[in-house]
């Protein structure tokens, strides 16, 4: 048994690694610049758009995005090994796209250098226009746009001979990119090794150490998810537990009374509830059962109590019991229906088997047959379901938490997605991946417990 658990835990490692690579990879492909997110640049504000390059670099270093992304990269000969050292994301993307067109990084680099040279020369206010155009050159990638800007720059007229030489220089350098294109390089594969000092390695190591990084607004993610995690854990545990408590008798009852009216009605009723969209049910419950408008103010308004319970389960429960009834009922509806239905199916299957007939022939009571013989053998689907429900502990129910104004993990994840705070989203993803794996392990162990014939 212990050996089995140990083995399974060993299997977790590669699985988790693969998941982490995917999750981390995704984070690199999402739009937006992590540094700017951190600097909280948003399109609506006009006041803080002007951050200095120095600030950008400082934040980039803090976030560790000045390092290579992964241990190694498989790319084409056209791409240099140290492309990551171009810190500004817009400039790096433009460089990448230019390489994809022409395949000659060295020429592109020289072109960008000549633009930066020009920018260094510009100091006085007269050349503002020139500077603005030049800055655009660093982030543009389409030939049409670059040529257009180059024309503008030439036409704006340089105030000194040094400047006009620089401008001609930029034009020449750009022409070189096009005339000396080495597109063949784009078809020759190459492999670069970066070592352990890379973004993924640091991210993973920090995750394993429990250091989950920082959200866009500068708050530590660990601190941010602590309370929500405990709230979600408590609520989901309760919801899962209660679902089983209610679903098991219903499942047994409907299996035993499959052809009676009450059995049929119960099953149909559960299915009707199951087929209703959860968000609609929750909204209706909120509208009709928490306000005096329709004369049915049975429950208090959405949200938890203002009393600080500091993570203790019993005090949380005692303070919030009336406030979590509705959300938990909503959370329970789907699992209850599924569990009951699965159990009913498995029971019916078992009830037709020979050993049941034997038991009846032996003269056992019907209820004893149901509880001790059929039910025990029908446990398997319930265990499978338990394994699937466990990840809910982490992600909670997005909708329910959002609608009932409960700040749990589901809402944290939802808000992070809306605010495009990917660091938080990925941590939630990783934690739920861990939970899925743990759920599977627990389910396997329960199989063994339910049926000793199962070989682990």
């Amino acid at each position, binding site marked *: 048994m212990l050996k089995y658990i140990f083995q399974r835990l060993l299997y977790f490692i590669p699985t988790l690694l693969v998941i982490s690579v995917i999750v981390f990879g995704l984070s690199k492909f999402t739009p937006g610049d992590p540094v700017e997110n951190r600097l909280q640049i948003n*399109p609506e504000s006009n006041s803080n758009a*002007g951050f200095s390059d120095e600030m950008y670099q400082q934040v980039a270093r803090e976030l560790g995005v000045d390092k290579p992304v992964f241990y190694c990269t498989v790319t084409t000969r056209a791409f240099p090994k140290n492309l990551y050292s171009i810190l500004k994301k817009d400039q790096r993307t433009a460089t990448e796209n230019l390489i994809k067109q022409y395949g000659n990084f060295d020429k592109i680099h020289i072109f960008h250098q000549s633009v930066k040279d020009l920018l260094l020369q510009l100091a006085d206010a007269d050349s503002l226009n020139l500077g603005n155009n030049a800055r655009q050159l*660093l*982030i543009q990638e389409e030939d049409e746009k670059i040529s257009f800007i180059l024309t503008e720059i030439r036409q704006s007229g340089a105030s000194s001979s040094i400047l006009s030489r620089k401008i001609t220089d930029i034009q020449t350098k750009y022409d070189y990119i096009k005339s000396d294109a080495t597109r063949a390089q784009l078809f020759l594969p190459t492999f670069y090794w970066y070592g352990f000092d890379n973004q993924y390695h640091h991210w993973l190591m920090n995750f394993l150490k429990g250091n989950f990084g920082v959200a866009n607004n500068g708050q530590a993610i660990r601190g941010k998810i602590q309370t929500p995690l405990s709230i979600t854990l408590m609520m989901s545990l309760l919801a899962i537990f209660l679902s089983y408590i209610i679903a098991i008798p219903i499942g047994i009852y409907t299996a035993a009374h499959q052809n009676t009216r009450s059995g049929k009605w119960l099953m149909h009723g559960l299915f009707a509830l199951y087929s209703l969209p959860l968000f609609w049910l929750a909204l209706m419950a909120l*509208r009709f059962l928490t306000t005096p408008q329709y004369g049915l*103010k049975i*429950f208090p308004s959405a*949200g938890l109590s203002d009393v600080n319970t500091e993570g203790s389960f019993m005090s949380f429960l005692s303070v919030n019991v009336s406030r979590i*009834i509705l959300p938990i009922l909503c959370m329970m509806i789907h699992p209850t229906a599924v569990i009951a239905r699965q159990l009913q199916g498995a029971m019916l299957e078992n009830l037709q088997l020979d050993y049941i007939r034997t038991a009846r022939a032996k003269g056992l009571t019907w209820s004893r047959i149901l509880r001790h013989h059929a039910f025990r053998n029908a446990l398997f689907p319930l265990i499978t379901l338990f394994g699937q429900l466990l990840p809910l502990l982490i992600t909670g129910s997005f909708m329910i938490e959002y609608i009932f104004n409960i*700040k749990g993990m589901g809402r944290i994840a939802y808000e992070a997605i809306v605010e495009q705070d990917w660091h938080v989203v990925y941590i939630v993803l990783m934690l739920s991946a861990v939970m899925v794996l743990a759920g599977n392990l627990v389910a396997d162990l329960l199989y063994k417990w339910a049926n000793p014939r199962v070989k682990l």
Partner: protein
Amino acid sequence: MNQKLLTGALSILLFSVISFSVFTSCNPDKDKRGNNVTVRLTGEPERLNPLTTEDINATQVMNLIFLSLLDFDPQTLELVPVLAKSRPSVSPIDTGIYKGGTSYTYEIKDEALWDNGKPITAADYIFTVKAILNKKSGANNLRSGLDFISDIVMDSQNPKKFTIISNKRYILSETASGTLPILPEYVYDTEGGMKSYSVSSLVLALKDTTQKGDEGLTKFATAFQSPKFAREKEGVMGSGAYRLDNWVAGQSITVMKKNNWWGDKLASSNPILAANPDQIVFKPVKENAAAISMVQNGELDAITAIPPKDFNAMKKDEKLAAQYVFEAVPAMSLVHAGFNCKSPKLNDKRLRRAIAHLFDVPTIIKVLAGGFGEPCVSGFLPQRAYYNKNLQPIALNIEKAQSLLAEAGWKDTNGDSTVDKNIGGKRVEMNIKYIFAASNEAAKNMGLMIQENGKKIGIQFTLEPQDGKVMLENMKKRDFDMFVNASGFAPSIDDPKEMWATASNTPDGGNRFQFENKRADALIEQIRSELTDSKRNELYKQFQALLYDEQPAVFLFARQERVALNKRFDAAIVARRPGFVPNAFKLKAN
């Protein structure tokens, strides 16, 4: 037996539901609430450190905990003294090393005290400024607003008096220096880590980009950004009437009125110092349905950001109308459709005006903004004293648009029902790339409107909904012809530089319109250094006329926020966001 089990389980459940509901539905809190005010926030603040966060929800809470020398009068949005005795005496410096600059002399009120009973002094103000100037402290936005400060000199006789030396003449110097939330040095710097630094040395250190981080500064900054000063009641302390009392993550933030609040004596003349409720509870409720059900239960005393549809429905509900005042207030935000003024298709102002004539602004406000908007044609908020009222709205006028197009030389030469023009030997079709955030439903519908109108005169609009971040990247690259966006404004007077000056037309700058105009640049510089209100207002009006004429954007409307206030309080609707001042709420006699 199983039947028994089932009925047993169900009855237990039913019993518990009913008993808890009976237990709760009488809502025992309701009668105990007294003069306590409950306010809805649209999201939970992450921290209450006034130097490092500008989040609107955090600001609402921090406004009660922290005070500044001056603040905006909630009604008139003019600067009024709060901790200061009066607005500063301003004098130009004509001699010495700071020649060409300005000095601002403030004196702090004698009554102003910290919680420990000690007076608020110039030293606390200077400490606050030093904390901001510390490169590592995370006060990036405030720091860039204080770049005019060269030094601060304490008065040798009066510890409550000091003079700020500004290195230039700049309209926002008074606002920026006066509205800083003052932090108590004895709480935020117990170890005296910032004592050994002077303001002028920190200013110099900011300019020095080569210097590595200073250990002392880093140490202070790390402590300053710790959770203690962001979320804990022992750390979040200011000179306001209220102190942080309780913060239940995700549920509520409660502030409590201080005992013996010194401002009580002065509150009659200054509503910012008023502290009528004993306790103010902020409830972060993101989901509107939940917030509305709380309003229906009478659990909220002040609520903003109600969706237009719900707002109108609630207003019509007699029961609610008897309980609440419903009002629309300015949201300090302007919706505009910006042009890429350098695009060959739009570099002629007649073309930009032609497109402006395709917008039907009254319909946009009525239908797309639910009626909650105020027409605005000048790029500045309509409630500003210097808003140029002489500028006429640009009405929907297809014929006018067509004639402007023809005037600018655009005709349909190839019969593809899109006008075109020969530019530099190449035929360019009038195909406008209109980008907007995919989540912005109103921008999409506006796009459909001008697309429809554009077809009539041969302008083709390609609508491109984009993810917010992608849109920002494209705006930086100027990869658009038109974009729809909203700009938020502070209550202070406007500095048009960030949005309209040629110097701001950089990838990271705020001038995304590629608007480069020498006269505008000159006017902006004049506005920024003109310290006399009347003269400056005249310049503002000239600048607006210029913007109106050049049309770098179609200015559509100023957004309005929807506010509901509980009638059990005497509470005023004000012009300053969020539209009410909770500390001034007064419980009605009955």
